[in-house]
């Protein structure tokens, strides 16, 4: 693979948002070795930042013109903002190479694709569920639902918990980023994905202030008013909600699968299970699962693209991905065929099986939308939760911001 004379030594920088996560850190240590073995002239320098610091650091580095060669991509509006500024490398050709065609499903690429071009190699599949602590169900004498359920049944369960002095849900009151998952589901359950996309892309006759969206926020407000949420959860930041569910402060948490392995590690006695988000009777959307893929993107300003692409090829190897799944407990988005039994814990495995059986997914909206609209979305959901804004005001604010972005040409996406 190497041509003579031997290539000069190259250092590639890879940035992730997994600081403090031992499994991920260990994985990348091993991956670095793998890369050096395959390409002795390449030394991979991996820097991990915390989730909150990752985007600011990336932004600052790009703004100054010296970004890392490779970085983790969350897709959607966040990635698109970087694409629009010409900071991300177009990987469409790379991802159509022989090895990639069968390996990478189209659906996995979708959140990293804009106007027909893909800008990241998708690898991790994250699905959103009502993660349940079965111990709490048992303690309250409530049966764990085994099939899809609708909103009325869901509210019924909420009341059942209340009557036993327990709480149905916990949430991150001080981290709006993770509160919006409820609305991600509710908006599509009631208005349908088609309508959401049309409204987002400012098609005529569509507004966020339309009744279906107001209804979505209303349902959320109803949930709050019904006392479904653990009171202490109002103060919780991201790290606290896992502790909250693990400790059994509430029965369920609406969250993505990346929390499963950490909770299992710190709360070995908690029996976890995933429950689908309820459907809404009369709504335009079906019982789809919310999902998004995490990808690896490349900076356009990278000076070592050839080597970076080689690293990505190794990253997508079956062995590498299996190792990743085993270490982190997170499902992989690529078509790896059957994984050896026990690679993933039972809950993550169940999530992956259910995801593979689906073809249509609900969007993770805060990252799908342009950053400014995503921020507004988080803001209004948070305010509805704390009762400082009505559902009508919330949707009106969202619509106003969307119109503003339309005038600036940021929408349609």
């Amino acid at each position: 693979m190497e041509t003579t004379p031997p290539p000069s030594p190259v250092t590639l920088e890879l940035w992730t948002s997994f600081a403090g996560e031992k499994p991920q850190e260990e994985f990348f240590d091993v991956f670095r070795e793998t890369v050096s073995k395959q390409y002795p002239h390449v030394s991979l320098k991996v820097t991990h930042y915390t989730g909150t610091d990752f985007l600011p650091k990336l932004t600052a580095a790009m703004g100054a013109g010296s970004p890392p060669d490779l970085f983790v991509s969350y897709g959607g509006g966040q990635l698109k903002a970087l694409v629009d500024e010409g900071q991300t490398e177009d990987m469409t050709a790379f991802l159509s190479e022989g090895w990639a065609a069968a390996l990478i499903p189209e659906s996995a690429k979708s959140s990293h694709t804009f106007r027909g071009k893909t800008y990241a190699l998708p690898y991790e599949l994250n699905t959103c569920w009502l993660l349940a602590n079965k111990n709490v169900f048992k303690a309250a004498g409530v049966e764990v639902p085994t099939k899809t359920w609708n909103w009325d049944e869901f509210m019924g369960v909420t009341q059942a918990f209340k009557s036993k002095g327990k709480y149905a849900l916990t949430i991150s009151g001080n981290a709006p980023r993770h509160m919006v998952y409820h609305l991600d589901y509710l908006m599509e359950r009631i208005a349908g994905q088609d309508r959401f996309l049309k409204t987002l892309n400012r098609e005529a006759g569509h507004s966020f202030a339309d009744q279906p969206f107001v209804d979505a926020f209303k349902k959320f407000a109803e949930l709050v008013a019904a006392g479904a949420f653990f009171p202490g959860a109002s103060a919780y930041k991201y790290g606290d909600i896992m502790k909250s569910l693990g400790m059994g402060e509430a029965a369920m948490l609406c969250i993505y699968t990346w929390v499963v392995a950490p909770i299992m590690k710190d709360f070995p006695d908690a029996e976890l299970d995933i429950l689908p988000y309820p459907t809404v009777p009369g709504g335009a959307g079906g019982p789809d699962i919310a999902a998004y893929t995490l990808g690896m993107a490349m900076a356009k300003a990278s000076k070592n693209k050839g080597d970076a692409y080689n690293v990505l090829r190794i990253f997508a190897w079956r062995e590498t991905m299996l190792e990743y799944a085993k270490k982190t407990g997170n499902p992989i988005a690529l078509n790896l065929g059957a994984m050896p039994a026990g690679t993933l814990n039972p809950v993550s495995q169940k999530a992956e099986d259910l995801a593979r059986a689906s073809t249509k997914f609900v969007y993770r909206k805060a990252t799908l939308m342009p950053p400014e609209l995503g921020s507004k979305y988080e803001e209004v959901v948070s305010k509805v939760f704390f009762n400082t804004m009505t559902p009508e005001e919330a949707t009106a604010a969202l619509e106003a911001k969307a119109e503003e972005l339309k005038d600036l040409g940021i929408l349609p996406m």
Partner: protein
Amino acid sequence: MTAVYKGIKRSSSKFITYAILLVATVIVVYPFLWTFLMSLRTNPEIFANPWGLPTDPVWENYVVAWTQGNLGVATVNSAIITMGSLVILAAVSPITAYALSKPIFGRRLLFYALLAGMFMAPQVFIIPLYVLLNQLGLIDTHLGLVLVYVAGCLPYCVIIIRAAFLGLPQALEDSARVDGLSTFQTFRRIMLPLAMPSVYTALIIEGIWIWNDFFYPLILTRSREMFTLPLGIAIFRGGYMIQYGPLSAGTFISMIPVVLLYLVFADLIRRGVAGGVAVKGSTRS
């Protein structure tokens, strides 16, 4: 009658004083005590029983904090950056303060510029600063951070030291002038030694601040090898689940140098504050 009343009043007021001080001490000390206890427990242990004492002290947390947080390197970085900044500040700020205490051209403007710079939160100019440092190739370097800190701490040091200079009698300078000393010699041999306590105060306060600062290193470093101590321990609260054990251990590790220095230099600090702040008292005439 009044004597007894006064006696009761005195002893009850003594009691109240004592009580208040005791409560205050507890309030000040307790959070650290609790953090120390937390540092010897594991996450599952803490969640199962938030209030218990460490059942089986997990001293490994300290090792984990040190290794996973790369605290050895972080401490060295913090030390180099703090000492470097203080050395430059010690060299530069007294003379700037002295110059600004004399009626010179542009003094008012410069003083305002210094004050305004002091009030600015780093978030305000961090992006232009990043771009600038990047152009100079100073991102992810010790020197880059040192220069940023010197520029940031200069105003405060100048203000404190200048106040000290202003408190010194004009007579000293006049007699120095009569003796034929140049301005610089006057400064070095007579004025500066008298204002030294204020220099200590300023340097100590700014030194503490630089050691504990989080935001500048957060944005202006790129690699783990360059992280300072606050960044090093921050990774334990950044992941999916807060690792209370190593985080508490890391907290203690990062506080040890500062507390040690404080204990060693407590007297110096007090003298510095005496000279730098209560200037009026020290030049009783």
